[in-house]
Structures are given as C-alpha cells and as structure tokens.
C-alpha cells in the first residue's frame, strides 16, 4: 500500500512546458485528472466494471429484482463498512466488528425474552452495550498505547466467548428464542428489517439506511470539524495533538461509531431472522475492512472517503451474487471471489496512480 503514499503529485511532476505557466506547483490540473485523484474514483470505476461484466455474463442480473438482492447484500456489509472506514481514516481498525454485531443482537433478544419486556427495551439496552464495547476498545487503546490489532483482537476473542457462554447460560441453548410474537416486534421489524415496493421490486429498508448513513458520514468527514480531526489523528497523532485536536475523544468516539454500526446491523439480523445463533459473525470483520480498503481507505490511516466504501461494499455484493447469477461452477466460488476482488483493487490502484503521476 505504500505506493499510494506518494508525496503531493504536483511536486514530482515536471514543470509544465507551455507558456504562461511558470511554476509546476501552482498549475491547475484539469478537472478529469483532479476527479481521478479522489480516493473513491478508482473503486467507482472498479464497481462499474464488475457491474457491466455481470450484466453481460449473467442474464438474470438484468432483472430489477436481482439488483435489489445485490443491494441488500451490499447494504448489510456497507452499513458496517462506513464506520469501519472512518475508524481506518482515523488510523485504527477493529477486529471485533464482526462478532460485535452478534453480541448486540443476542443482547437485545435475550433481554426482551428473558424479562418478557417490549422488544424496544432490548433494542435500547443493546445500543448501550454496543456503544460500551466501542468505548472500551477506544479507552484501552488510548490509555495503553497498544496497537489496535492487539486491543481489538482481545475484544474479538472476549466477545466470541461471551456470546456463546452467556447465551448458553441464559437460554440453555446456543441460539436465542424466537421473539417474533412479542410486543414491539412488528414496529422494530418495520424500522430495521422491512422492505418496500419500487415499481414491482421489493427493496430492503437497509439499502435506504445505508445510503442515508453514507451521506451523513460524507458530510461529517468533509464539512465538520470532527471530520478534520479524523483525518488529523489518522495522519499523525502527535502533530494532531500539537495543533489542539482532541485525539483521545476522536479515537474513542470513532470506536463507538463502529459500535453503533454493529448495533444497527445486529438489530437488522435479529428482526429479520427472529432468532440469533451465538456462533455467527466470525470472519465478517475482515469483509468490512476489505470493503473499506477496496473503497480507497489506507490501512495506514489519514486517507480515504466515506463514499468509497459504499462502492466497495457494492462491489463485494455484486461479485458475491453475480457468481451465483452467472451459474458458474460453485466449487470455484471463493476463488472467483478472490480473483474479482483483487482485479477490482488493481483497477482502483492503477487509476489512482495514473491520476497522480501527471
């Protein structure tokens, strides 16, 4: 990934030969070149390429309903990929994000069921738990100075064990009880897991939430002080602190944002499937991180966008479902997935390099 951390492009560029432009540093680059240099443009082109590829290769992708399925898969990844991307821009990442989703769903389900309460009570407590897990990650990180790999690997293992052990302790089984006949379930399902009709196609509500969150994240990142803080702490923690950025606050709230995302996706899973198995979620954290990295966020922090991961998640959903739509030999499924993702990332990288080399 180090290739992408080149110094400012204008510095390496040779001075423009034409008259009227005396100094290369002040030269205004043309609009397409400036567009191409944005972090999300590479992944956008990659996503378009994958999309067009499957439009040609898989006839059933051309139906409206198929696109709804692809978008649904993309949205459940994408909602988590957004806070994960912000965290990554802020210089950290979170390995516990996958099981944290299941922790949230288990909390809400067991609390409402065991105490026979309105499911909204469980939903709110689950939010508190999820934010708490995020705050714990961030707090340990800033207090100890340990790398986020170690801290969140610890949380990942803790949550994985707690998910299983507490579920078994409380319900006597490794899955939660069905809560679909309880008060508030229909409301909560409408909020987290309903679908609506657009021209005869059933679109899942998560797609709408995903886009709303993406717009919000973009606004925060580009138009608010907090957004500047994220870039600053990701670029250099010490310099950021020197110019008065509240590093501790920023890092902890970023982890809490991931907690919020885990809560939201966890609630979707709970109200979509009525019960939760305690062993799920393992391995999902890598998919969220992958969506963010494909979306142009650097693993080293300080660079990226919120819209990039939207295309990253879309690309993941498109490839995942496209292989099925195309009816390819499923034994090769994982291999196809890997090849297509690598290919897309290479397009992404090539576009960014081509744009910054001018």
């Amino acid at each position, binding site marked *: 990934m180090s290739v992408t951390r080149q110094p400012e492009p204008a510095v390496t560029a040779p001075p423009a030969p034409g008259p009227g432009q005396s100094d290369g540093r002040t030269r205004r680059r043309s609009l397409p070149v400036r567009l191409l240099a944005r972090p999300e443009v590479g992944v956008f082109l990659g996503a378009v390429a994958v999309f067009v590829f499957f439009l040609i290769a*898989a006839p*059933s992708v051309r139906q409206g309903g198929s696109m709804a*399925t*692809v978008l*649904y*898969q993309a949205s459940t990844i994408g909602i988590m990929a957004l806070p994960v991307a912000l965290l990554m821009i802020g210089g950290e990442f979170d390995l516990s994000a996958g099981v944290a989703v299941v922790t949230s769903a288990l909390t809400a389900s067991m609390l409402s*069921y*065991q*105490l*026979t*309460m*309105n499911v909204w*009570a469980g939903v709110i*407590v689950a939010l*508190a738990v999820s934010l*708490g897990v995020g*705050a714990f990650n961030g*707090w340990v990180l*800033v207090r*100890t*100075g340990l790398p986020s790999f170690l801290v969140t690997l610890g949380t990942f293992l803790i949550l994985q064990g707690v*998910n299983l052990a507490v*579920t*078994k302790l409380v319900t*006597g*089984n*490794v*899955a939660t*009880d*069905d*809560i*679909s*006949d*309880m*008060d508030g*379930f229909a409301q909560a399902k409408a909020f987290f897991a309903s679908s609506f009709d657009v021209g005869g196609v059933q679109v899942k509500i998560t797609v709408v939430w995903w886009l709303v969150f993406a717009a919000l994240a973009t606004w925060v990142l580009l138009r608010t002080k907090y957004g500047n803080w994220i870039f600053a702490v990701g670029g250099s923690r010490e310099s950021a602190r020197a110019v008065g950025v*509240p590093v*501790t*606050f920023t890092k*902890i709230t970023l982890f*809490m944002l991931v907690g919020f995302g885990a809560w939201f996706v966890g609630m979707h*899973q709970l109200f*979509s*499937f*009525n019960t939760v*198995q305690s*062993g*799920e*979620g*393992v*391995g*999902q954290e890598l*998919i969220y991180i992958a969506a963010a990295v494909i979306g142009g966020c650097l693993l080293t922090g300080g660079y990226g966008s919120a819209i990039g991961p939207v295309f990253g998640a879309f690309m993941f*959903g498109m490839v*995942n479902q496209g292989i*099925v*739509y195309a009816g390819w030999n*499923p*034994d090769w499924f*994982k291999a196809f997935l890997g090849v297509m993702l690598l290919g897309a990332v290479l397009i992404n990288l090539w576009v960014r390099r081509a744009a910054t080399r001018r």
Partner: protein
Amino acid sequence: MVRSSHPRSRRIAPAVAVFAAAALTLAGCSSSSGGKKSEEGGSTSAAGTADTPRMTVALVTHQGPGDTFWDIVRKGAEAAAAKDNVKLVYSADPNAGNQANLVQNAIDQKVDGIAVTLAKPDALKGVLAKAGQAGIPVVGLNSGLADWQDLGLLEFFGQDESVAGEAFGKKLNDVGSKKAVCVIHEQGNVGLTQRCDGAKKTFRGTLDTLYVNGTDMPSVKSTITAKLKQDGGIDHVVTLGAPFAMTAVQSVADAGSKAKIATFDLNKDLTGAIEKDEIEFAVDQQPYLQGYLAVDGLWLHKNNGNYSGGGEQPVLTGPAFVDKSNVKSVAEFAAKGTR
C-alpha cells in the same frame, strides 16, 4: 504522552446508558405476548441414577462454537452421564490438530472412556493408538462411519451421511421434485458434501450445489435468493442445517419463487415451521441419541462388558424423517432443545 489528558469526560455516557436501561426495566414496559413468561415449564426427564462406581468420560467433538446441532449432542451426553453416575468432560475444536490435542489431554487425565467424532480420521490416528496403549476404551460418534473399525474403536453411533443423502433423494422423488438446489454452508466439509452427493445419487431430477457463507445469515439469505432468481425452474431448496432452512423460507418469499424447502437436522424453530407448512420435511439424525448412546455405551462396556452393535456394526441413529404427519410428536422435545 499517550496517557490521556482528558480523564474525566467520557465516564458519563455508559452511566447514562445503564441508568436508562434500569429505568426502562422499572417502568415495566413488558411484553404481553411471547417471551419467557409464556414458555411452558418443561419437565426434565428425571429417571433414577445408577449406583455403579463414579467414572469419568471425555467427549471430544469437532464442534464449531455456537452451533445448535452440537448443543443437542452435548445435552444427550449430559443426560446419560447424569443417569449413569458419570462425570462428563466435554471439549471441542473444529481444527483437527487441536482436536487430537484434546484427546491427548483426556488420556493425560486418565479418563475411563473417550467418545470422539472422526471428522478428520487421519489426524486422530496417532492419538487414538495412544489411547489404546493406555487401555482407555474409545467409541466414535457422528462422523467417521467408514473409519471407526480401522482405528480400533469399540463402537460407533451415528448416521451414514451418504445413506441419509440417498434417503433424502428418494424422498424428493416421492414429493415430485424435478429440480433442486443443495445449499452447502461450509465449503470443504466432507459430511455436508456426502449428503448432497448421496441425494444426487438417488434423485431422478437435477440437483445443483450452492455454497453460502454460513457465519453471515444476511449473506445466506441473499445468495439463495439470487440462485432462485437465476434458475426459475428450481422446485426444492435443500439445506443441510436447521437455521439455514429457516433463512431459506425468507429467500423463497423474496425471490417470489414457488420452491419448497426440505432440510437435514432439526431444531425447535424448525418443527414449528413444519407445522405451519413453511418447510416440507426434515431428515433427523437424532444428535441427542448420538451423545446419549456414546456415553451410555461406555458405561455399559465398563459395568457389563457390552458391545453396542456387537462391536462389528455401527449403531445408526438416522435418517429419521420428520414431516407434517409426525411433527407433533417431536415438537415438544424440540422445544426443550433435545430433538
């Protein structure tokens, strides 16, 4: 440097959250339907306890964490242990090398018997020979039907996955299926593949395979939906685990397909779905029985010198079919998490 210069500020948020939760609980926003209160007080089977000397049995499986199937196996083993005055030591690891270490651990503890699953028999060969040298009787359960005798095990309790698959294929013929899709939730799992292959053998229609990511339910749902949309001719979705069958119900609805759903393995939600006609039938290998018989078999061998299956034949626990005609008799046990 790293130590925070803002120690006081963020203690408030969690405290507020906990307080809000407590307030909610106190405010009594209770549900008038469902929940723990509506659950029937299930009676636990409390038969007498054997007065034989206390013995220790280790049950070592290849369970991944949080799988409903293995929970039922373990409950069966615990029930037998309680009745037979046996101390049960349970351990599990899906990685074959780690599972071998757990068997070694049991040998080190000098247990009186070991029950083990043979998902990857070659990896356990060495350690099982050591158990033999130590004079510890070993029985197999669940997987390893082809290998238990070669490895010198006393007895075997389980289902022949290929036989179960073949029975499944015949049942699909009986219900008039022409084109089905077999959903594998763990790529590379031998037992799951044998089920699909067995069904393919006896099924007269065509059976496609579909791989899904078993740890991510939304992904399972959309992948099955995609398959149903890609091929409108599919009339049956075959899943290999109960939770995936429940998800397939939603996929069929999402795809606007008329396909029916049949599955391997049961749990308590699934029996309800069979009663409601959402799922056509399930083939049950009775995991509770596998756990129970394995422990009981070791007890019988120690206290009465018995060999279940004569030490020559495996004791088959499946395939038993559960459909609308007999689901009522199974449902009450499934509700307790033992079927």
